[in-house]
């Protein structure tokens, strides 16, 4: 049944698929993960804080984001933010953000909500005595967090954080809705230009599968390497 398939189309488009498409996908994944983890950790600390109101605000944000489909948020950001920018700055025309920046901000803010819940679980997994010991030694909240609680929380949560990153890696393909060319977008364009839909989509699926599988395998190995000796 593969007789009249043209596998050569893949070879011909490799540079475009990987140098343009995959580079964008990986950059977006890594940058959104980094930003998402930082903001997510701050959100988690806010959710667990006993400063009046702070926990509720962070909680409301997380619940709002988590109850919306990602595609909707991508759309919303891409089409509405220029107008909000215009409204805030009072400019005469909508502020152009650019597709990459828009996608990056969207994914960062979106993922932050998920990373927040992961980090919250991570912080809560550290026995209360650890915080008490840090306090008893005279550490301030920020020192105790930075030196004692978060390093342990991160280590406990690395597998889950990286699993979430793999999900993010797959979700970045949704940027096609704002016509950004990621790996999937590149494959899709070639597929339609050359009329080779089956070949390109099969190839794209295989690439996502292999990368995700390799990453999961690496996560499992990393997990045993960084485990805290108990």
């Amino acid at each position, binding site marked *: 049944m593969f007789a009249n398939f043209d596998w050569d189309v893949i070879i011909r488009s490799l540079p475009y698929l990987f140098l343009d498409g995959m580079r964008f996908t990986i950059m977006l994944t890594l940058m959104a993960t980094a930003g998402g983890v930082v903001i997510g950790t701050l959100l988690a600390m806010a959710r667990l804080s006993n400063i009046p109101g702070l926990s509720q605000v962070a909680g409301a944000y997380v619940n709002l984001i988590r109850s919306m489909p990602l595609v909707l948020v991508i759309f919303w950001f891409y089409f509405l933010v220029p107008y909000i920018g215009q409204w805030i700055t009072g400019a005469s025309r909508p502020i152009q953000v650019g597709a990459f920046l828009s996608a990056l901000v969207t994914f960062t803010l979106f993922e932050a909500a998920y990373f927040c819940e992961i980090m919250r679980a991570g912080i809560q997994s550290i*026995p209360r*005595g*650890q915080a*008490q*010991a*840090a*306090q*008893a*030694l*005279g*550490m*301030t909240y920020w*020192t105790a967090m930075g*030196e*004692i609680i978060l*390093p*342990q929380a991160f*280590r406990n949560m690395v597998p889950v954080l990286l699993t979430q990153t793999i999900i993010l890696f797959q979700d970045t393909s949704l940027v096609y809705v704002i016509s950004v060319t990621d790996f999937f977008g590149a494959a899709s364009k070639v597929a339609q230009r050359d009329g080779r839909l089956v070949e390109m989509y099969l190839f794209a699926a295989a690439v996502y599968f292999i990368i995700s599988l390799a990453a999961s395998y690496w996560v499992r190995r990393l997990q045993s390497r960084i485990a*805290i*000796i*108990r």
Partner: protein
Amino acid sequence: MITISNVSKWYGTMQVLKNCSAEVAKGEVVVVCGPSGSGKSTLIKCVNGLEPFEQGTVTVDGISVGDRKTNLPKLRARIGMVFQHFELFPHLSVMRNLSLAQIKVLGRNPKAADEKGRKLLERVGLSAHADKFPGQLSGGQQQRVAIARALAMDPIAMLFDEPTSALDPEMINEVLDVMVALAKDGMTMMVVTHEMGFARKVANRVLFMDKGEIVEDAPTADFFGKPRSERAQMFLSKILQQ
């Protein structure tokens, strides 16, 4: 050194400390004992503000713990505390456990902090274990490291919250020996413990608590010789039978 006056504390509607008053003078060793759930640990945690309290005052070296204006981290840095479950930082080496707070809190340079840590490890007999992680040590060794960690801050007083309760019987003595040596050196100590042998040997006074109250506050010899309260007598007869 430590003055606790009329401290009361509630968890919701349940009162866990009832009008507690006590004093620990400089160089004194005071043992706090009593049945579990009597508020001993809560009381000792009020001394460095790990547990907030609703009424009364606690002062350490003239500084009020409950006062909102007090810089609590700064005060806590001067009071050593040893916990029932050691609470060493499992992701840091033994040496780093000893030096971290010296560097981050006291602002010592890392070399001086390491030097200090090494000396204290030697003092608790664990020089060989500086580069290990807490999880690689036995309970007794971990607790000795925890004592060294507290001492590294040059505390003016030490608080012990049931330091031997989580240990296997054969490890209790190695920890108690360190504590006895510390008491002999003149350290001001407040010790929550069930180790009556230790109390007899080094305590100047014994506080007996029951149901959130300090029922008895007596010199050690008097406490073991002729405890006044019936509850203390019952407690003693039970615990000394073992």
